[in-house]
């Protein structure tokens, strides 16, 4: 399936159909998740109604980590096989991951204030997630720092791969260090240690967020393919004495365009 879609023209055809499905199912599932989170789920016996923040905070944190993994894997594919669609996928997904990381940090802060008495503490979990956020920002800045899209993507891919070391640090920070942040209660050895009435909204919400991620990634990939195609068309149309060296260079940077068209 992945290799069949790994052709820009085929991807454009596939996503024309898949995008509306992903989008509307994301809206429906998130609406259902909100119902569970804000109405159906009970208040916590210790934390009261603030526990409702969890239904945004925890799925956003899961998304932040898994999208980073997606960016890193796509970057590895882009570096090893030089596949243009892989680097486009990585660059399209990164801002979505950054958005989820920001949501995770902001909601965590709003939860920490009433429960811990502090908006922010420099504990291992919080600090490593902040590092994750900066890795996303660094990747996005690097990818966009070059005029030629291929070069930015390659530099960004290296950064994305180096940053993978932060993922286990985020995941296991609550076990390795004494943190104010509580340890895992869903994804842990021995199964979830959370009531089903609270597990359901979490799972529905993370499903909705994943569908939203798929829809936005496809939309942003289509945008990038359009932009590269438009760039190639402009360059091919340039009047003849247009510095040939630079022109060939730029056109070869977007092989997706040539093959896709």
């Amino acid at each position, binding site marked *: 399936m992945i290799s069949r879609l790994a052709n820009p023209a085929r991807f454009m055809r596939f996503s024309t159909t898949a995008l509306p499905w992903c989008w509307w199912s994301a809206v429906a599932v998130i609406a259902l998740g909100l119902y569970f989170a804000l109405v159906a789920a009970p208040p916590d016996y210790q934390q009261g109604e603030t526990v409702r923040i969890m239904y945004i905070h925890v799925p956003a944190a899961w998304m932040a980590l898994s999208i980073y993994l997606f960016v890193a894997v796509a970057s590895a594919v882009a570096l090893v096989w030089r596949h243009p669609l892989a680097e486009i996928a990585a660059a399209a997904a990164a801002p979505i991951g950054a958005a989820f990381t*920001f*949501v995770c940090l902001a909601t965590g802060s709003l939860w920490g204030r009433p429960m811990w008495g502090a908006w922010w503490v420099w504990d291992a979990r919080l600090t490593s997630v902040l590092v994750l956020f900066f890795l996303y920002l660094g990747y996005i800045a690097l990818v966009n720092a070059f005029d030629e899209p291929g070069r930015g993507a390659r530099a960004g891919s290296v950064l994305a791969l180096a940053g993978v070391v932060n993922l286990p640090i985020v995941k296991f920070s609550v076990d390795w260090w004494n943190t104010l942040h509580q340890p895992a209660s869903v994804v842990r050895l021995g199964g979830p240690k959370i009531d089903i009435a609270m597990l359901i909204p979490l799972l529905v919400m993370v499903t909705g967020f994943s569908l939203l991620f798929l829809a936005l990634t496809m939309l942003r990939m289509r*945008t990038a393919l359009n932009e590269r195609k438009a760039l190639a068309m402009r360059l091919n149309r340039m009047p003849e004495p247009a510095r040939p060296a630079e022109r060939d260079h730029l056109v070869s940077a977007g092989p997706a365009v040539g093959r896709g068209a």
Partner: protein
Amino acid sequence: MTGEIGRYLAMGGYAAFVWPAYGVALAVLGGLAWQSWRRYRASSNMLERLQRELRTRP
């Protein structure tokens, strides 16, 4: 009725934390979706214009 809704909105006294948390999520994810959509429209319009120009020009 209003009392019930008011009690719900008060979130057990934590309204100032619960609602902003949902608001931030909505603003950030909604904003990203909006920005992505706008940029997609702009890119397809540009491509369409270029293709039209290419067809009309010899």
